[in-house]
């Protein structure tokens, strides 16, 4: 038995990524990072801003997501997200812009605690990205 499972990442416009030989995926779930291996029990969760790590054999790919839903079932992992970027493709400019936007949003008064938490978290993740 191989230790591989399927992953499919879709955004509203298209299927973003589809792979069949993934050995491990780490996702930034709402209540903490989850590492998913083959034969994980079925799970549904949603994402907070963070990095999705996809391991295929020795390769590792990183994607930045802002939100989304994860479903794992019968050894196939589906991630639905409206905003996802390959880390290779985003540059510092983009990151800095996003940080500024998020901070602007944070300075508003009417946002609730959950949103504030998510935004704070987003800024944190983005800042750690821009350092690297």
């Amino acid at each position: 038995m191989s230790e591989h499972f399927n992953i499919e990442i879709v955004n509203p416009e298209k299927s973003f990524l589809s792979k069949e030989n993934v050995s491990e995926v780490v996702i930034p779930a709402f209540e903490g990072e989850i590492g998913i291996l083959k034969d994980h029990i079925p799970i549904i969760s949603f994402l907070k801003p963070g990095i999705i790590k996809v391991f295929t054999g020795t390769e590792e790919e990183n994607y930045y997501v802002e939100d989304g839903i994860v479903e794992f079932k019968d050894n196939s992992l589906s991630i639905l997200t409206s905003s996802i970027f390959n880390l290779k493709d985003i540059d510092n400019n983009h990151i800095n812009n996003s940080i500024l936007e998020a901070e602007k949003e944070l300075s508003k008064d009417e946002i609730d605690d959950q949103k504030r938490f998510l935004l704070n978290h987003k800024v944190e993740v983005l800042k750690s990205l821009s350092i690297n």
Partner: protein
Amino acid sequence: MPSLDDLKKRISSVKSTQKITKAMKMVAASKLRRAQENAEKGRPYSDKMNNIILNLSNSITDKENSPKLLAGSGEDKVHLCIVMTSDRGLCGGFNTNIIKKAKTYFQKILDAGKTLKIITVGSKGYDQLKRIYKENIIEKISFKESKYANYFDADKVGKIIIDKFEKKEFDVCAIFYNQFKNVITQIPQEQQIIPLKTSESEGSSSEDNYEFEPEEDEILSNLLPKNISTQIFKAMLENSASEQGSRMSAMDNATRNAGEMVDKLTIQYNRSRQAAITKELIEIISGAESL
């Protein structure tokens, strides 16, 4: 009997119309390919979303306390209809079909004594509906600037709907759009999005015991607003493919009709030219004979 000159003018005018319709057909055909591709690419997202929601709602045991977006507000008094049409004309029966479908629904609601509210997406729908339902239209949205249907626009519409729902401005929400089947056939659709109808898409296994993180209802209340945007987006994609398909076949017809007309006019032109020549000949001959 039109004169030769008139016929000539008409032929050339029909020919230039034909050129335009032909060009429009070509443009629609290439846009159609793009729109169709987009519609197909967008399907997995909405399908998966549907599936997850189905699984979630099946595993919710406490139906009474499930989120309002899923269960509805418990009443059935005010209906909100989202009529999605195109921003441009010259696309055959595309807009008319949606409007017709919507109007029968409106009539049903008004007959039942319920309140009707309409949001039109796309300017053509507003133009056709404002005559009768002017006071029912609470908002008109148009995305003339966006070249292709995009999620950002759909999200805007979704947010408006949810905002209105939370303010308790309506109880039931339905969207109207054309589903793209092929170039010739587009089926006008009526889809209820609030409260969500899950029974129609049953069939996927609901026996899996999922692990939820966080709790089911929290996920659901997060997911349902997204689902509304997704459904709107799906409708927009289907609509834009349908619009191009409809325009393509309409323009194809128009081109063919113009061709037929040109043929007919050309025959008429030739006949009257020949008649004029014969007349002149007879005049000359009879003139010569009388000498």
